[in-house]
């Protein structure tokens, strides 16, 4: 039986590009990140990278359209059809990086 399950995150593949956040029709994704400078031995200046601090999907709002999965250039989001859950509060439905990553 096909069902939508949940959307899981592979945090190490996320570059904080914000594309999923911007394309989400219900605005249910929030992403916090900061930049870091990486020194490289043979480079003239440090490389700037984005570091993901927190990736959150509010499953109370999520309509499971999958646009975030389609738009991610790094395939950092994926369907997990075998996961489903319910919660006793709306706060619990706001799932952060650790939970989203645990579902992959």
């Amino acid at each position, binding site marked *: 039986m096909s069902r939508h399950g949940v959307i899981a995150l592979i945090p190490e593949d996320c570059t*904080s590009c914000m594309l999923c956040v*911007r394309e989400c*029709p219900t*605005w249910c*994704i*929030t992403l*916090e*990140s*900061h930049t870091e400078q990486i020194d490289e031995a043979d480079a003239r200046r440090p490389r700037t990278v984005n570091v993901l*601090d927190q990736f959150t999907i509010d499953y109370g709002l999520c309509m499971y359209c999958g646009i975030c999965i389609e738009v991610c250039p790094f395939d950092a989001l994926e369907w997990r059809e075998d996961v489903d859950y319910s919660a006793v509060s709306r706060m619990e439905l706001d799932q952060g990086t650790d939970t989203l990553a645990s579902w992959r």
Partner: protein
Amino acid sequence: MQVAPEVVAPTDWRASAEAMRGWRLDLLTAIDRRESIDVVAHYIRGAEHAWRMTSVPYDGSLASISDLHPAAAWSERETSEMFGVRIGEVTPLLRHGDDSRPPLRKATPLPARVEIPWPGAAEPGDDGRQGANPSRRRTRPPGVQPEWES
């Protein structure tokens, strides 16, 4: 199968509906083109699809085709209410005593999408501070129209 809509003048709208006798009217709705509103009818006969479209000015009127295609009755009322056009004799359907602007026009703002901060306004790496980098062109949330913010 997608077929290009056949565009007719508003004065020919009833004639085009009459020519589609024997077809089933599947839906009648509208598209806000900003300068005018396009009313669209979708007809089906077996595996065939046909689209008819006509252009009506804002707050303009269009003849009803519900005597030719009874399925149009509900759709015409809904389209009239949602887009602010008058198709036939308009009787309230979903909006009763509501004199705010027609909900489905692009110019009608959706306050929630303006007042609530858009998570997508943050730039990558800016610690969640919204719009921290002034040199970047601000993108708008999908569907939010420029005139809502004024």
